[in-house]
C-alpha cells in the first residue's frame, strides 16, 4: 500500500490541471461572463486547485466504457447494484462505434451499440462519468476506496442540448481522433453524432480561449470556470475494461510506408472511410487526392505474430476484419481489385469460415505472402513487393490504396494504470490473469476483475461474454450488500375515462428550432384544438426550470396528456417521461413531436414550410395523444433457481459462479460424473495443465457448495413455462422428478464427428482421432511410433461441414509436442490447411514448438486433401502434396492422428424443442445477436455457454460460463421482473384462433389456448408484428394500435383545424 500512496502523490503532481483559464478573479470572470465579453488568453494562467472533493458510494467501479465496460455495467446494475462507470474520453462506446459493420453478419456497428449506450446512460443504478480517470485504489475486496479525477470539459452536461452551435463558432480546427486522423473537427466537439452523453466538450490542449463558443451558446452551458474534480468513491469491487490500442506502424513495420505515403492507411482508418458518418460518408476515396481507387490491398499481421517487429501473439480479429472490409468493398463496387496478403487465414469462429469462403467467391483475392517492402509510384499508387509462398515467385503488385491490418496491442497506459490499481501486467503489456486458461477474468489483486481486450486481443462477442463474466465475479464480492432501492415512481393519478386535457410544449432549443420555424405560431395554432388544454412555447424544454414548469402546469391545469415538440424521443423521450411520472401521470401518456432533427434542422431554408410541417407533426401527436391510455407494466415473481443443462467445464464453472452469487443452482448431467470432456483429455492447450486435476478441484468445490445440487444420470424430458417461471420434468434411474426454476443455462457441449470411412478411420488400430489419442496418452499404452502423421481439418471445411473446428490446430500442436517429448526420435508431421492458433499465448506456443521441437508442418490445399493408404501388412501410408514446396510426399505413419471436425451435442435437437431455441449448422445453438448478445437466446430467461455455442478453448469457455451465469443471475437477483408496457393485447371475442399471430411472433410470446390467442406479457417485446399480421385486428399493440396510427395518418393529411 505504501508504494501506491507514493505513486498517488507523484501522479497528482504530474497531472496538468486543466482549470487554468483564470487570470482574473472568479468574481470578475463571472461578471464578465454575464456580459458575454469574456476574453482571456491562455498564457500566464494561474494554476487552480481541484474542485472540492465529492464522495460517492457505490458497489462496483468500472473503468472504461467501451462495449465491455458498458456490458459489465449493465449486467451489474441490472442485478440491483450501484455502478460507477468512468470513461476517459467524452463519450461511451469505445472502439466498436468507430467500426462500419461487424463480421460475420455485416451488422451495422453503431446500430447495435447505440441502444446499449442509451440504456447505460438512462440506467438508474449507473453513475456515468466521462472525462474521468482513476487515480488510486486502496482497501480490499468488499471495501475499496478509489479516487477519480474528473477533468473539466468546461461544458455543463445538464445544460448542453447538443445543438452544435458552439462547434460552428469555434475557430480552432484540430485533427479528429475519432476518424483516426482522416478528418478535422473543432476545438469544441462531440466525438460522433450519436455520442452519449450528447454533450460538447472543450479540449483544453487545443482551446485558444477566445470565448466564441461561450458567446453563441444560448443555453449557457459553457463555463470556463468549471473545475476539474477529485471524487472519492467507495466500492466493493472493480472491473477494469480499458480496452486496447492499435499498433501504429510508424517505427516498427515502417517499411510498409505508413505515415510516409498518404495512400497507405490502417484498417481502422479504412473502417472510417466505409462508415456513413465517417470523413467521406461511406465512399472509399484515396486520402492523397480524393479519387476512387481501382485496386486495394490489405497486408495482414502488421505488428502481430512477430517478436521482432511488433508483438508475438496473434491479434485474433484482423483476418476477419480484413475479409469483411474487402468483401464490403466488393459489394460497393464489384469492379475493384481487392487483394489480401496473409500468412494464415484464421477464420476460427462461428460462421467465420463460411464468411471467408463467401468473400473468396465474391472475388476477394487471397495471396499467401508477407510483403517485404512497399514503394510509392509517381501517381500516388503503391507498389507492393512480395513472394507468393505457394509459387515461390517474387512479384510486384501496384495498388491504388494499401490497408495495413494492424495489431491489437496493450494500451500504453496499462503499466501506469496497473500500478494505480495494484494489478499485474504481463510481458506484452496486457493485464495479467489469475490463470490464462482457467481464470481469465481475475487480476492479480483480489476484488479487481478484467473484461475485454485489456487482457488480450478479442473480438466483440468474446469481450461481451467476458464482461458479463466480470460482472458476475464483481457481484460475488458484494453479494451480501443491500441492493440499491428500486426507484419507485409516485402514485399515479387515474385519468382513464377522463376527457383528454393535453398540454403542448413547443421547444425553441435556443435558435435551433425557433431559428428555422416559428415556435410561437405552432403553439398558437394548436391551442384551438378542443382537446388541448394548454399550449406554450419554451426556450429549452429539457432545462431544469422548464421541467419544473411542466410539472407545475400539469398540476395547475389538470393535464392528463403531454406533448413536447422538440428534438427526438430517442435522446430525450425518457427525460420527459420521467417528468410525467414525477407528476403522477403514467409515462405512456407522453407523446413526442420531433420538430428539430426531423424538421428545423433539415428544412433550414424554408421557414414557412418548416413551420407548417411542425404544426402537422404536433397535430399528429395530438391525434394520437387523445387516444393514449395509461399502460401498466406488469410484474412477475422469479423463482430464484437456475438450472444448468450439462456438467462439463462450462456448466461447472457457471454453477460455481452462480453459487458464489448465492443462487440455488441445479446441474442436470446425463453422465455419471461431472467434468465432461475434461475427463477424457490428457492436457490442455496452450498449457500443460492437468485437466483431471482441474476437474477434481471443481468437483470438490461444487460438492462443498450449499447452493449447488447435482443431478447425475439424469435427462431432461420436458420443459414448460417462461422466464421466471419454468418447470422441468426430469428422468433418472431413481425415478422421475420435477423442478421449478427461473432461468436456465444450456451447456450441452460438443464432440468429434463420426469419422467412419474418412481417412481410413475405423479400419486400422494405427489410425485414431485426437480425442482418442488423449485417452491413449492418459492410459499411456501407445506402442512406440517411429513416424507420426496428423491430419488437421479432417472432415472440416468441406461442403458437408463448412465450418472450422476452432480448436484442432492448437490440440494438434500440443499433442505433437507431447509425443515428441515422449518419443524424441519419432518424426512428426502435421498436415494443415491454415494454422489457426489465435490470440495470446497460442501463437507463442506454436512458434516455440516449431522452432524448438523439430515438428514438421506441411500445408495442403483444400482441393487436394491427403490420401490414406492402408497396405496389406497393416502399415499406413499418407500421400499429400505440399502446397508450399509443391512436392508430392509419401509419409509412412506408425500413428495417424485425425484432427476431427466437431459438432454440437446429440441432445441439441431435443433441447431446441423444449426451450424453443434455434439451432444452426453443425448442431450449434444460435445466439440472440452474434455480437452484442452472445450468451442470450431470443427467448428470455434461457442462456448458453461453452461449446454448445461453438467449439471453445478452455479460457473462452470459462469466460462464457461466468458470463452466462451473470446473465442468468440478473432476473433472479431482480426478484421481480417489470414487463414491457407496450405489449400486445387480444380482444378474445374477435379472435378466431387462426394462429397466424403466434406463427409470426419472433419471441414465442403468443399461445393458442382454447382457440384464442393469448399473449404472454413476460415474453412480449412490443414490436407489433402480430398486430400487422392479424386480419381482423383482434390483437393490438398497445401504444401503437390501429386506431392511433390511423388517426395520425388522417391528421397528417387533413388540416383538421
Amino acid at each position, binding site marked *: 500500500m505504501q508504494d501506491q500512496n507514493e505513486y498517488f502523490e507523484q501522479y497528482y503532481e504530474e497531472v496538468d490541471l486543466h482549470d487554468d483559464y483564470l487570470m482574473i478573479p472568479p468574481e470578475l470572470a463571472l461578471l464578465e461572463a454575464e456580459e458575454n465579453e469574456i476574453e482571456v488568453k491562455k498564457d500566464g494562467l494561474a494554476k487552480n486547485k481541484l474542485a472540492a472533493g465529492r464522495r460517492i458510494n457505490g458497489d462496483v467501479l468500472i473503468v472504461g466504457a467501451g462495449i465491455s465496460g458498458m456490458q459489465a455495467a449493465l449486467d451489474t446494475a441490472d442485478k440491483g447494484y450501484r455502478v460507477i462507470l468512468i470513461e476517459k474520453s467524452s463519450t461511451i462506446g469505445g472502439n466498436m462505434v468507430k467500426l462500419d459493420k461487424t463480421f460475420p453478419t455485416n451488422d451495422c456497428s453503431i446500430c447495435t451499440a447505440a441502444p446499449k449506450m442509451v440504456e447505460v446512460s438512462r440506467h438508474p443504478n449507473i453513475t456515468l462519468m466521462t472525462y474521468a480517470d482513476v487515480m488510486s485504489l486502496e482497501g480490499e475486496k468488499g471495501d475499496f476506496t478509489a479516487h477519480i479525477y474528473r477533468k473539466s470539459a468546461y461544458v455543463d452536461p445538464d445544460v448542453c442540448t447538443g445543438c452544435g452551435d458552439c462547434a460552428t463558432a469555434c475557430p480552432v480546427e484540430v485533427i479528429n481522433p475519432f476518424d483516426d486522423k482522416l478528418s478535422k473537427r473543432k476545438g469544441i466537439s462531440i466525438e460522433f453524432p450519436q455520442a452519449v452523453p450528447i454533450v460538447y466538450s472543450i479540449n483544453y490542449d487545443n482551446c485558444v480561449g477566445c470565448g466564441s463558443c461561450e458567446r453563441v451558446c444560448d443555453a449557457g452551458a459553457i463555463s470556463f470556470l468549471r473545475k476539474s474534480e477529485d471524487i472519492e468513491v467507495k466500492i466493493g469491487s472493480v472491473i477494469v475494461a480499458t480496452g486496447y490500442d492499435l499498433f501504429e506502424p510508424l517505427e516498427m513495420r515502417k517499411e510498409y510506408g505508413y505515415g510516409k505515403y498518404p495512400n497507405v492507411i490502417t484498417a481502422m482508418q479504412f473502417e472510417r472511410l466505409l462508415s456513413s458518418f465517417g470523413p467521406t460518408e461511406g465512399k472509399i476515396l484515396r486520402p492523397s487526392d480524393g479519387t476512387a481507387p481501382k485496386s486495394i490491398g490489405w497486408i495482414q499481421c502488421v505488428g502481430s505474430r512477430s517478436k521482432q517487429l511488433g508483438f508475438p501473439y496473434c491479434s485474433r480479429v484482423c483476418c476477419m476484419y480484413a475479409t469483411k472490409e474487402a468483401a464490403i468493398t466488393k459489394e460497393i463496387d464489384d469492379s475493384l481489385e481487392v487483394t489480401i496478403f496473409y500468412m494464415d487465414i484464421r477464420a476460427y469462429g462461428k460462421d467465420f469460415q463460411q464468411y471467408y469462403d463467401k468473400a473468396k467467391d465474391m472475388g476477394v483475392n487471397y495471396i499467401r505472402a508477407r510483403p517485404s517492402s512497399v514503394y510509392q509510384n509517381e501517381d500516388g499508387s503503391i507498389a507492393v513487393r512480395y513472394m507468393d509462398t505457394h509459387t515461390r515467385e517474387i512479384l510486384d503488385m501496384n495498388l491504388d490504396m494499401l490497408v495495413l491490418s494492424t495489431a491489437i496491442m496493450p494500451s500504453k497506459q496499462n503499466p501506469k494504470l496497473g500500478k494505480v490499481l495494484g494489478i499485474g501486467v504481463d510481458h506484452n503489456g496486457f493485464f495479467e490473469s489469475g490463470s490464462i486458461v482457467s481464470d481469465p477474468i481475475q487480476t492479480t489483486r483480489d476484488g479487481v476483475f478484467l473484461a475485454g481486450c485489456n487482457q488480450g486481443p478479442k473480438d466483440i462477442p468474446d469481450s461481451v461474454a467476458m464482461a458479463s463474466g466480470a460482472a458476475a465475479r464483481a457481484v460475488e464480492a458484494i453479494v451480501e450488500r443491500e441492493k440499491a432501492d428500486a426507484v419507485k415512481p409516485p402514485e399515479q393519478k387515474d385519468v382513464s375515462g377522463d376527457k383528454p386535457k393535453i398540454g403542448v410544449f413547443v421547444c425553441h432549443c435556443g435558435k435551433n428550432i425557433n431559428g428555422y420555424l416559428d415556435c410561437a405560431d405552432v403553439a398558437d395554432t394548436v391551442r384551438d384544438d378542443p382537446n388541448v388544454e394548454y399550449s406554450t412555447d419554451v426556450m429549452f424544454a429539457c432545462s431544469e426550470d422548464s421541467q419544473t414548469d411542466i410539472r407545475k402546469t400539469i398540476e395547475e391545469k389538470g393535464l392528463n396528456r403531454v406533448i413536447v415538440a422538440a428534438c427526438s424521443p430517442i435522446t430525450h423521450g425518457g427525460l420527459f417521461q420521467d417528468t410525467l411520472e414525477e407528476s403522477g401521470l403514467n409515462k405512456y401518456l407522453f407523446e413526442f413531436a420531433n420538430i428539430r432533427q426531423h424538421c428545423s434542422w433539415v428544412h433550414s431554408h424554408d421557414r414557412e414550410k418548416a413551420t407548417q410541417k411542425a404544426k402537422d407533426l404536433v397535430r399528429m401527436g395530438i391525434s394520437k395523444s387523445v387516444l393514449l391510455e395509461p399502460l401498466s407494466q406488469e410484474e412477475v415473481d422469479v423463482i430464484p433457481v437456475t438450472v444448468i443443462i450439462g456438467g462439463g467445464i462450462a456448466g461447472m464453472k457457471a454453477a460455481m459462479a452462480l453459487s458464489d452469487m448465492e443462487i440455488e443452482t441445479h446441474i442436470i448431467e446425463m453422465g455419471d460424473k461431472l467434468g465432461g470432456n475434461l475427463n477424457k483429455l490428457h492436457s490442455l492447450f496452450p498449457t500443460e495443465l492437468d485437466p483431471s486435476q482441474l476437474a477434481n478441484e471443481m468437483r470438490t468445490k461444487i460438492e462443498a457448495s450449499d447452493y449447488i445440487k447435482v443431478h447425475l444420470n439424469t435427462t431432461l424430458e420436458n420443459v414448460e413455462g417462461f422466464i421466471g417461471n419454468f418447470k422441468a420434468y426430469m428422468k433418472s434411474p431413481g425415478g422421475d422428478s420435477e423442478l421449478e426454476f427461473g432461468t436456465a443455462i444450456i451447456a450441452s457441449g460438443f464432440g468429434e464427428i463420426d469419422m467412419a470411412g474418412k481417412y481410413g478411420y475405423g479400419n486400422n488400430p494405427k489410425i485414431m482421432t485426437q480425442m482418442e489419442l488423449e485417452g491413449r496418452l492418459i492410459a499411456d499404452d501407445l506402442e512406440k511410433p517411429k513416424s507420426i502423421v496428423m491430419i488437421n481439418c479432417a472432415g472440416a471445411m468441406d461442403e458437408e461441414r463448412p465450418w472450422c473446428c476452432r480448436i484442432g490446430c492448437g490440440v494438434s500442436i500440443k499433442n505433437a509436442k507431447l509425443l515428441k517429448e515422449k518419443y524424441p526420435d519419432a518424426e512428426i508431421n502435421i498436415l494443415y490447411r491454415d494454422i489457426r492458433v489465435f490470440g495470446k499465448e497460442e501463437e507463442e506456443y506454436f512458434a516455440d514448438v516449431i522452432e524448438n521441437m523439430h515438428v514438421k508442418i506441411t500445408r495442403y490445399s483444400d482441393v487436394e486433401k491427403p490420401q490414406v493408404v492402408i497396405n496389406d501388412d497393416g502399415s499406413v501410408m499418407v500421400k499429400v502434396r505440399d502446397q508450399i514446396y509443391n512436392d508430392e510426399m509419401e509419409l509412412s505413419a506408425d500413428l495417424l492422428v485425425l484432427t476431427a471436425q466437431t459438432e454440437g451435442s446429440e441432445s441439441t435437437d431435443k433441447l431446441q424443442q423444449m426451450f424453443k431455441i434455434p439451432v444452426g449448422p453443425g448442431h450449434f445453438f444460435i445466439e440472440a445477436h452474434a455480437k452484442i448478445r452472445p450468451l442470450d437466446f431470443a427467448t428470455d430467461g434461457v442462456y448458453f455457454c461453452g461449446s454448445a455455442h461453438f467449439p471453445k478453448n478452455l479460457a473462452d469457455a470459462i469466460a462464457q460460463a461466468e458470463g452466462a451465469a451473470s446473465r442468468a443471475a440478473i432476473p433472479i437477483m431482480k426478484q421481480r421482473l417489470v414487463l414491457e408496457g407496450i405489449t400486445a393485447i387480444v380482444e378474445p*371475442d*374477435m*379472435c*378466431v*384462433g*387462426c*394462429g*397466424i*399471430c*403466434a*406463427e*409470426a411472433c419472433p419471441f414465442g410470446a403468443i399461445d*393458442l389456448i382454447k*382457440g384464442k390467442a393469448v399473449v404472454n406479457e413476460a415474453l412480449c417485446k412490443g414490436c407489433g408484428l402480430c398486430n400487422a*399480421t392479424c*386480419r*381482423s*385486428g*383482434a390483437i393490438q399493440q398497445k401504444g401503437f394500435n*390501429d*386506431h392511433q396510427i*390511423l*388517426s395520425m395518418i388522417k391528421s397528417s393529411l387533413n388540416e383538421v383545424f
Partner: protein
Amino acid sequence: MVDYNAMTLDIRAKAKAMLENKEVKYIIGWERGANSFISRPVIIRDAGDTDRLVWNPGCVDNLTRYLVEEMQYKPKRGEEPDLSPVGIIVKPCDSKSIVELIKENIVPRERVKIIAVTNIGTVETNKLRKILQKIPQDKRAGIDILQDDNEFTIKYEGGELKVPRPELLANKCETCVTHNPVIHDVVIGDKIEGFEKDEWADVAELENMSPEERWKFWEAQISKCVRCYACRDSCSLCYCAECVFDKEKPFTWIDKTVDVSNNMFYHLVRAMHLAGRCVDCGECERVCPVNIPIRKLNRLLLKSAKDRYRIYPGMNPEDKPMFGSYDIADPDEVV
C-alpha cells in the same frame, strides 16, 4: 368421358356407410337443383336420404363454407356442443380450402371426413344460361350434362347438344391445374393426368396492358361494385368474428359511401387478407351480382407468392402461412 353416374353412386354408397356407421353426424353435399341443372347444397343427416346426393358438372358450390359455419357454431347456453365429425363432399379446388382451414386451426382434421372427387371442370352458370337459350324452354327441366376432354354434351328430352369445353367451362377451371384432391378420406373417380394448361394466361393478359389501361379496366370494374359483400360472405377463408369492414367502434376502416375510392380500398384489402391463403376456388367471382372479375386480384397475388416465395397455398396443412413466416433469402427489391 367422365362417368358422373358411377361417381354419384359411389358417393351415395360411401356417404350411406359413413352415416350408418355413425362416423359423421351429417354429410354436406350437393343435390339436384329444383329448377335448373345447377346443383344446390344439401345436408344429409339420414342414411336413407343419401340418394339425394349427386355429382355432375353443375356442382359448382364450394361447400367448405358450411364446414366453417359448423366449426364456428357457438352452442347456446346450456347446450352440449356436439363435436362429432361431419362429412363433406369436395372437388379438388375445394379440398385446398380444407387444407387452408386446417392450417389456420379453423377445422380440426379429426372433425371432418372428406369425400373428394376428381374433376376436370364444372360449368359456368352464366355461360350455361346463355347456351340453354338454344334448347326449347319446355325441354330444359330434365337436362343432364356430360363432359369429356374436348366438349360438354347437354342431353335433354329428345336430343343432345354438343358444346366445345371453353364455351361452357367455368372461368376458374380454364386455368386450374388441380384436378385431383390434395386431402381426402375417400377419393371418388379415377386419378386425372394430363390437362396441362397455361395457369396464368388470365393474369398475363392484364399484365400486358399499360398501367393506365389497367387502371381504366379496374376503375370500370370496381365502380360497378355495390359492396353487397357477397364475395366476402361466400369465401371459406373470410371467417373473422368481426370483419374489419363491419367494424364501427371505436373507429371505422372504411365509410359507407359506395365509390371507387372506398370500393377499391375494400377490394385491395380483401385481396391482401387472402394473399398466401386464397386457393382460387372462385366462389367470390361466381356470386358477384355485378360480375366483377374479383379472382384476378387474388390470382395476381397467388402468382406473386409462387414466383417470389415458392408458396402455393392449399397444398399441405404443414406449410407455414405466407404472412406469418419469412425466408432470409426472399427477393429483396428494397432500396
